[in-house]
């Protein structure tokens, strides 16, 4: 079905417009050769498929003529105009096909995706993914070639059964965002160059973003100052100086610096935006408990109290309070931001963009979302012991009569065994209970009395028994003499094996489609099942060996019993191995006799 080589007359054009040079376009497995009609002209193209990146082509019914445009990966392209669209179609198929083969990811940039079916538009990503799959898995590729390019299945149908494959792959590379590290970004460590006693902060885009996120004020300032007031560089240097001052937490110095450079103040002073926010929050708290009250009673000033940060305790000076930034504040802020997570997703290379985005997100997030979150947090932080337990009621199970299980199984069990009698037939015991027990006891006492006889088994009996057993043993032995788990296929010559497997796989593919359309709910499906047989047929024509696969009996109603539904396809399932009779089937068998026959031949030695 898949032509190795094709020749069409076409015009070679340098541009879509303008008249091209008439000639013969010849495509082989890996080459495209164009010979102009008049030998004198120089334009003679001979390119390898490998050097072709992709192709475009015009859609049928569109105004423009049937063009195909082969894009070379080192720039430039060849444009051919065909005489009619069918030619174009054929060539396109061929190109797609051989591109797929010649290990290149094929980027279909035609005004209609090349391999996409009528009813779905696929992102190029999807397309690439599929191509990738095809290239990775030769088997898949074979099938794809055979069915899709052989117009037996539409692309979408083909992939529908492989959703898992697609999903699986996509989920692999579905990019999940990575959250904030919970390490304190605020301690961006400066590198200290001992020789030239110099400090270097290096801020990645990420850090900048985080700084913005953490410090609305800075971000504000950035928006105000950069670039019209100062360059971005200056801005960050200032920021870093401020940071440095914080490191040394020498409020004095800070104050001094602030005095001489008003810009620094922004960085040194508490973040007023946050402060306001905090105040708002505090206000939201039930007024009966005064949060500000406890701000006074931290024991920072006492000798060994308070939190040590970086090994050094925070010394508080009463004046320049403004320039002090407590560890707690940082911590809380950090926590808050981490919890918020990434509110924006713009690529971080441009700080200004980021800053704006952040600012924006703040605006809207200030609305319901925050409320929502607050509510949930409050709901989470409630004291357990004051709450009702969160247990879920279990669904009760009331089984009316457990005996059903037993009976059903029992009935089945007994029925399916060789014996003819009904299930639990009453023992034909003539005696009543007492007598029965009496009998039992008497026989016990009897044996007690007389003991065991040395010759309880007569030799001839013993012999017959053991012979009988041996008999049955050897019979079973011959029944399944060859061990079961050796693969029959290995006894076949490779080519036959390959072929066999290929047939089998392709047929399985078809059947999968056949079944995937049950139960028939939509007319579409109906059409499909109907069609799928026709397709089966055509497919079967494609590869020999199962050529005789019958189309379903005329007017075969897909709704009718699955059995008959399967009847018409399952022989092919076990290429030539099955033993069902039924018309369509015997023929299949006949065809496959070839294989079967070989089977025997090869299994001899």
């Amino acid at each position, binding site marked *: 079905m898949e032509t190795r080589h094709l020749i069409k007359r076409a015009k070679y054009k340098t541009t879509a417009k303008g008249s091209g040079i008439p000639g013969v376009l010849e495509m082989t497995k890996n080459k495209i050769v164009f010979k102009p009609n008049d030998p004198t002209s120089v334009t003679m193209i001979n390119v390898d498929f490998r050097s072709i990146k992709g192709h475009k082509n015009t859609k049928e019914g569109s105004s423009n003529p049937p063009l195909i445009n082969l894009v070379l990966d080192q720039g430039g392209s060849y444009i051919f105009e065909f005489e009619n669209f069918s030619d174009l179609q054929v060539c396109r198929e061929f190109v797609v096909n051989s591109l797929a083969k010649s290990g290149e990811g094929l980027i279909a940039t035609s005004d209609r995706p090349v391999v996409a079916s009528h009813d779905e538009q696929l992102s190029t990503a999807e397309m690439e993914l599929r191509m990738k799959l095809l290239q990775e898995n030769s088997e898949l590729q074979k099938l794809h070639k055979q069915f899709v390019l052989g117009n037996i299945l539409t692309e979408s149908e083909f992939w529908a059964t492989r959703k898992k494959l697609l999903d699986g792959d996509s989920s692999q590379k579905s990019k999940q965002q990575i959250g904030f590290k919970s390490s304190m970004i605020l301690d961006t460590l400066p590198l200290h160059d001992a020789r030239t006693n110099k400090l270097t902060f290096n801020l990645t885009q990420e850090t900048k973003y985080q700084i913005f996120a953490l410090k609305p004020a800075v971000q504000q300032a950035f928006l105000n100052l950069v670039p019209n007031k100062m360059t971005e560089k200056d801005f960050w240097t200032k920021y870093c100086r401020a940071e440095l001052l914080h490191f040394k937490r020498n409020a004095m110095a800070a104050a001094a610096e602030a005095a001489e450079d008003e810009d620094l103040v922004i960085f040194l002073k508490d973040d007023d935006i946050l402060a306001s926010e905090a105040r708002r929050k505090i206000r939201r708290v039930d007024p009966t408990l005064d949060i500000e009250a406890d701000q006074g009673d931290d024991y920072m000033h006492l000798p060994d109290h308070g939190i040590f940060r970086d090994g050094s305790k925070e010394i508080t000076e009463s004046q320049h309070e403004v320039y002090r930034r407590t560890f707690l504040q940082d911590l809380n802020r950090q926590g808050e931001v981490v919890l918020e997570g990434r509110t924006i997703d713009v690529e971080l290379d441009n700080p200004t963009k980021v800053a704006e985005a952040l600012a924006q997100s703040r605006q809207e997030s200030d609305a319901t979302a925050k409320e929502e979150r607050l509510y949930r947090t409050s709901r989470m932080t409630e004291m357990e012991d004051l709450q009702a337990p969160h247990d879920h009621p279990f669904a009760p199970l009331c089984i009316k009569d457990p005996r059903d299980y037993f009976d059903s199984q*029992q009935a*089945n069990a*007994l029925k399916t065994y060789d014996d003819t009698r009904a299930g*639990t037939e009453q023992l034909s*015991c003539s005696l009543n209970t007492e007598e029965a027990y009496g009998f*039992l006891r008497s026989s016990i006492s009897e044996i007690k009395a007389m003991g*065991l*006889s040395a010759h*309880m088994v007569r030799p001839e009996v013993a012999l017959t028994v053991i012979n009988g057993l041996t008999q049955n043993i050897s019979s079973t032995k011959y029944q399944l003499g060859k061990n079961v788990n050796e693969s029959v296929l290995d006894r076949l010559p490779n080519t036959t094996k390959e072929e066999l497997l290929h047939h089998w796989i392709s047929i399985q593919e078809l059947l999968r489609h056949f079944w995937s359309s049950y139960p028939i709910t939509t007319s579409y499906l109906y059409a499909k099942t109907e069609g799928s047989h026709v397709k089966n047929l055509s497919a079967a024509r494609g590869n020999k060996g199962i050529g005789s696969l019958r189309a379903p009996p005329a007017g075969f109603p897909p709704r009718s019993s699955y059995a008959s539904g399967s009847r018409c396809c399952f022989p092919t399932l076990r290429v030539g191995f099955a033993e069902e009779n039924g018309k369509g089937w015997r023929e299949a068998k006949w065809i496959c006799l070839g294989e079967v026959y070989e089977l025997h031949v090869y299994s001899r030695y």
Partner: protein
Amino acid sequence: MASAPSKLYADDVSLLVVLLDTNPFFWSSFSLPFSKFLSHVLSFLNSILLLNQFNQVVVIATGCNSCDYIYDSSSATNTDAESGRMPALCSDLLRKLDEFVTRDQHLGEKDSLGPPTSSLLSGSLSMALCYIQKVFRSGPLHPQPRILCLQGSTDGPEQYVAIMNAIFSAQRSMVPIDSCFMGSNNSAFLQQASYITGGVYQKPQQLDGLFQYLSTVFATDLHSRTFLRLPKSVGVDFRASCFCHKRTIDMGYICSVCLSIFCKHHKKCSTCGSVFGQPQSDVPSASNVK
């Protein structure tokens, strides 16, 4: 869960737990007289003990109203010389058996229902498994346990789940259940049991040669079984049958709550009374088109 632990023991040292069917209604109506049966079994037990002095035999009586241990070679005191020509095993076992039968009868009298035709196989199986677990616990030096059911009476449907549970537990701890079934028609339970646990199912044709069957097939220790070809238990058909019409089915619907089986779709489960949503499309979501 107890899986068979590694044994440092000799290859063929084995623990044989025999489940002895003492259903009077069966024996009283059976061609092979109980006394003969006993004599075969007793000499079989003797021969097991004879093969290796670490071999251990435990006998559990499967009555139709109760089950009980009637012999345990490990705890047996083989020094009571009550009757010279009676081996300790027999006298011991028979005495216990006698007591058991009487007890069984009394229990039967208490019972309001009519005379049951089936023995309590599930009970004796469970006991046997408990015993074997004890042996497993006894440390690395334990004999290789196996169970032998000498069953005659028909299966008691009401025991199905119990017996299945026992079978699976046995399978999990790799204890084969051999079954020698003497009744008229095959026992589904025992066939499944042997099939699942990799034991042997035999239905002796020549009953007066019972001992021969026992010694030829069932005396084989697990170690020897690895390179011997024993009567293969016939491939059991594991198709289910529906609760509604009790007929065997190829395809059916199963209640996701109580796992009861129906041959066609119902609105409501007749077993657990739960109401169903619309029938599941029988093709998995994965391969669903549109």
